[in-house]
């Protein structure tokens, strides 16, 4: 299992390199001299020289990439144009907030989604199924930010239950998690329902009935476990989407975090911050996918055999 984890981690290296090339190129693809995108307007020639040195801007493009990558791997993400703070500090400050939000949203969507999916499959075509699937359609088609704004209107402004914005206490996490969680729950519930229904039709389920197992044991002990491997596979691919929702929701609720950092930097053309936050988000997606793969291997002996 550890060998498998290490192998999967190594497989991420080329993906990471490819993503880092794209993110590195942002600076060179936007119009204008790269140095102008790395430094405040009106900086002195001496300051420009320091930046040019640091990024190796007089060298060839591949050399510049490796200098940049070296800096990134050492934890040097450059200096923000707006505010002149080290980008690594800004990222480190934002990261815990995003992790808390993403993790809580993931946990919420997975647990509620699986529960609803199981109920919908158990009561297939009954009223509970129709109700859940209707909610799923609504949940997956509402723009996340709009849902967030409506939640603020209802729960914060009218009912006054939760804070409107910020990240001071756990209450401030509730609405953002609900907002991302609704779309996430919809996704998980839909996938679980289909996976449960497909798993119920497998041959071995009939034999379990023939062995005299009670229906609930067949469903919870065998069918659900099967469905979960399918759910985890798809979730592993989709963890990025839930984390992507975190970007939007942070902006809506004015929470500190990577998403807020990225969107603000994009609007302010603060490219060192844009690059760093994109890189962090991409890595979060990759690690999320890896996590999903590992859970899948833990659930399915066939995956373990295929990998060893």
């Amino acid at each position, binding site marked *: 299992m550890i060998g498998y984890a290490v192998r999967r981690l190594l497989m991420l290296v080329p993906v990471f390199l490819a993503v880092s090339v794209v993110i590195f190129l942002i600076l060179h693809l936007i119009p204008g001299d790269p140095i102008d995108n790395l430094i405040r307007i009106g900086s002195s020639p001496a300051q420009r020289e320091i930046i040019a040195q640091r990024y190796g801007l007089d060298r060839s493009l591949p050399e510049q990439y490796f200098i940049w990558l070296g800096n990134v791997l050492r934890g040097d993400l450059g200096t923000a144009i707006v505010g002149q703070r080290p980008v690594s500090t800004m990222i480190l400050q934002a990261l815990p907030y995003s992790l808390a939000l993403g993790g809580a949203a993931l946990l919420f969507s997975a647990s509620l989604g699986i529960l609803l999916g199981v109920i919908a499959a158990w009561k297939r075509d009954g009223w509970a199924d129709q109700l859940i699937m209707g909610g799923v359609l609504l949940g997956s088609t509402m723009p996340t930010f709009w849902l967030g704004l409506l939640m603020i209107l209802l729960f914060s402004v009218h009912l006054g239950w939760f804070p409107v914005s910020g990240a001071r206490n756990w209450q401030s996490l509730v609405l953002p998690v609900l907002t991302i969680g609704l779309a996430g729950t919809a996704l998980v519930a839909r996938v679980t329902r289909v996976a449960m229904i497909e798993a119920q039709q497998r*041959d*071995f389920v009939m034999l379990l009935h023939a062995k*005299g197992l009670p229906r609930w044991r067949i469903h919870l002990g*065998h069918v659900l476990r099967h469905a979960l*491997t399918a759910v985890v596979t798809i979730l592993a691919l989709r963890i990025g989407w839930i984390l992507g929702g975190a970007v939007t929701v942070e902006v809506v609720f004015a929470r500190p975090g990577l998403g807020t950092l990225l969107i603000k930097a994009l609007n302010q053309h603060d490219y060192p911050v844009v690059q760093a936050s994109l890189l962090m988000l991409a890595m979060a997606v990759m690690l999320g996918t890896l996590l999903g793969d590992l859970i899948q291997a833990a659930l399915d002996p066939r995956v373990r055999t295929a990998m060893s």
Partner: protein
Amino acid sequence: MTALLTVADMQVTIGPVTPLDGIGFTLDRGEILGLVGESGSGKSLTAMAIMGLLPLSGGRVSAGSIRFDGTELTSLGEDAYRQLRGKRIAFISQNPMTALDPLQTIGAQVDVIGTLHFGKSRAEARRRTLEVLTQLRIPEAAAICASYPHQLSGGMKQRIVIAMALAGEPDLIIADEPTTALDVTVQAQIIHLLAELVRERGMALLLITHDMGVVAQCCDRVAVLYAGRLAEAAAIDPLFAAPAHPYTQALIACIPRDDTRKGTLAGIPGTVPAVSAYPPGCRYHPRCPQAQDICRTTVPDSRPRPSGVVACHFPGPTNG
């Protein structure tokens, strides 16, 4: 004395259609009954009906009776039925490749019979599992118990399925084409193993197959189904000596013999009609070489024969 299993005039409906009707046969301890017919004739559905598993496919027994050891199964509650399944009536399914839960160890899948039906502890159940596997001459039973289905061959998986059936010490085993998915060499082994066990332990075996050769080798009696109706039922020797129903005759003619030259394998022209397209009268008449006007309009009644019944307007001659 009444037989262990008596199916009488059974009718099965699934939604708007009636895929089975007028099915009847008996089976006693120590006996092997072959249930034969082409695909689509209703063999598996008959097995599902006896197992009480029709609701899984949205069907039910809508008429007739299934009596098992004095108990009427058609009116049995689900809980009582569940206690019969896996214990007194065991099932061996068609495709061993897909019959086992791929996510659970072999041991756990057999153990559950012991813990569920005999109230054994896990350790006791495992001891019993090892015992059964050893009786089935499965080498390295302990290692097999720890492995997962995808690590075993098809023949080994089918032995495991048989072990699961035997672990309940059942009175009746229903085996639905237990060998069709296996290699030819393994097929014979598995069939002989099953037949031997049944005789040794005085169990009853309902063997579903489309292979008349297998029937001739190991069954005591045969019930032939065609398009959801019983065509003929008889003891094995009179049936092969003088098949009364034209369909039985055709099936027997299909058995490849040693003297059959290559390329002359016989077949029955046409196919079994779909449930929604059962013809009126005798359902076999479109394919029957001896069909007369009455066959096209009137359903033939089951009439007694020296060792069984036949449902045909013009049954073949009996030899004594």
